[in-house]
């Protein structure tokens, strides 16, 4: 059980939580009369069995990586950004707007420009809670939740008023801004795989570099560990809180651009949230707020979501089972105290 402490705990706790989450999902299936072995086999096949589902899994994990990075980046400074969902929506809208408005640009200019616009929109949306936290000590959890709803209604109103096309949506963006790729679609049996994954991986590298290789990153992490000590050491805590939220919002906005420029190529009037932003919280927690961990966790959750479709058609288990499993995984990761407590107990008795 010593594997649960020390340097291995960063890996063993998430792995154990995933196993426990799947176990609870299996019990729920047993109780409600499904065969968990058939269902999980179908789930696994639904992720890896052919190039189509593999392509869909990578497409699904693309925005999850960026929303996970957004949550993780803020966590590193001790901030809980639940507003990723709203920042993602304004980013999605900004990317589609740039994709619609500029014509005749080279894709090498147009795509970065659209993603940049999405990042800036998300950053502005996250700046408000950051400023309120730094200036008035308002808890960011509440303000970011409120900003989510403001984003949802404002984005819908803007689409309805200025960008409406038939079908409660915007027009399709120009080809020069699109991340969609005939090549990637053809090698994955016509899945919706697009080039967004490249930008998501670049995002992960940027986060790692920013946090661990720059003095700004050092300051951000120091504030996350202990803001009073940081203040005493001469670090401007307020500036770092705002900066952290802004960078986090930029990642979230970029996640929206992946949907706007990649998967859909337009934006619809949203009846409800996408869920990608909230899933980012799960991704970040499971990935222990590290860049690599976020990519791996996004792959897991993206895979579960795509595999769930096959599980439903083969074993008739509703796709919502995967949401239950993800919720249980978050509970277990968050309650890692339980896992540590058990391991300490076992050690004290001198057994195992």
């Amino acid at each position, binding site marked *: 059980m010593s594997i649960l402490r020390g340097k291995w705990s960063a890996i063993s706790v998430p792995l154990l939580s995933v196993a426990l989450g799947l176990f609870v999902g299996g019990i729920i299936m047993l109780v409600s009369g499904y065969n968990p072995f058939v269902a999980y086999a179908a789930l696994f096949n639904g992720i890896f069995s052919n190039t189509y589902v593999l392509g869909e899994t990578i497409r699904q994990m693309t925005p999850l990586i960026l929303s996970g990075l957004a949550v993780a980046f803020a966590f590193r400074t001790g901030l809980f950004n639940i507003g990723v969902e709203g920042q993602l929506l304004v980013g999605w809208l900004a990317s589609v707007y740039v994709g619609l408005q500029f014509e005749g640009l080279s894709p090498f200019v147009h795509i970065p420009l659209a993603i940049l616009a999405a990042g800036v929109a998300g950053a502005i949306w996250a700046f408000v809670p950051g400023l309120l936290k730094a200036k008035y000590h308002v808890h960011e*959890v509440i303000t970011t*939740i*409120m900003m989510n709803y403001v984003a949802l209604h404002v984005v819908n*109103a803007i689409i309805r008023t200025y960008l409406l096309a038939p079908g409660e949506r915007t027009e399709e963006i120009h080809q020069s801004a699109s991340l969609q790729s005939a090549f990637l679609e053809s090698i994955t049996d016509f899945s919706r795989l697009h080039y967004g994954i490249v930008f998501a991986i670049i995002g992960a590298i940027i986060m790692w570099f920013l946090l661990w290789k720059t003095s700004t990153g050092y300051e951000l992490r120091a504030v996350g560990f202990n803001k009073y000590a940081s203040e005493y050491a001469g670090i401007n805590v307020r500036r770092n809180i705002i900066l952290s939220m802004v960078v986090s919002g930029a990642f979230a906005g970029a996640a929206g651009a992946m949907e706007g420029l990649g998967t859909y190529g337009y934006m619809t009037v949203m009846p409800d949230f996408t869920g990608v932003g*909230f899933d980012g919280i799960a991704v970040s927690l499971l990935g222990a707020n590290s860049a690599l961990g976020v990519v791996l966790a996004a792959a897991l959750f993206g895979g579960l979501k795509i595999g769930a479709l096959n599980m439903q058609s083969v074993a008739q288990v509703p796709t919502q089972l995967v949401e*239950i499993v993800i*919720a249980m995984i978050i*509970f277990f990761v968050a309650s890692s*105290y339980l896992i540590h407590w058990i391991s300490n107990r076992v050690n004290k008795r001198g057994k195992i």
Partner: protein
Amino acid sequence: MDVMQILQIVIPAAIFSAAPLIFTALGGVFSERSGVVNIGLEGLMLMGAFTGALFTYLGEQWGMGAASPWFSLIVAIIIGALFSLIHAVASISLRADQVVSGVALNFLAAGLAIFLVKKIFDAGQTPIIQERIYKTNVPFLSDIPFIGPLFFSNAYYTSYIAIALAVLVWWVIYKTPFGLRLRSVGEHPMAADTMGINVTKMRYVAVMLSGGFAGLGGAVYATSIAGNFSHATISGQGFMALAAMIFGKWHPLGAMGAALFFGLAQSLSITGQQIPGLKEIPEVYLLISPYVLTILALAGLVGRADAPKAIGQPYEKGKR
């Protein structure tokens, strides 16, 4: 259209849409006053709405008739309280981050409720319930001139229960020993512990109360407003109730007032089209007003809102 007609449209609609928010916000007051953040209100409300629709339907099948929705409200309170135990165990006993645990509870409720609906009905939503909680004119009171038509006609009994409960909760929290203990646990758990109050037990009770109230709020929404349960039935009402609780400064009557005000904003965004002068205001301003006002309240621009001191911190005995 004269002023009276306008008020007759607006006020009953406001009270009507506020009732589920009031119940849920009162639940939030209990939990947060004891020092446990409850972002899970949305999920608890969702479970309540699911239970409300399901058990009203079952009640109809079992021949309960008009009593079915009321039966479902009681079941929803119990289910809500039990479901909130997950949040309580994780955040109080296992010292999980309370916000994270609440977020997970929302995920779990959304997944579990739809999973069960698909399992039971083999469809994405429950059947439309026949026996709903309907509008009534309150006997005698609705005959009072001016006040009668505004407050006691075309109203739902659940709305009066909500307002009465808000007063009751105020009395419990501010006028009883239980309330004093609840508040002390949320302000300074160590001092409360020293005085012999069982912090863990108080927090468990508070979280379960919040679960019961939020379950009731969700069930009232399902049986009076929605009429069935699907994935879109509860989308943000729980968070709006959370906003009402904060805008009401963690005070039961304040939360009720804020919920009534948010209900007014919601009903204006629907009924506004019938009212001269409001037609020109785009709907979006009314839709976002509850959230913007809450942000302004927190920033101290609309009266300062301060959370209980020990909120969000797990209590560990003997830790300084």
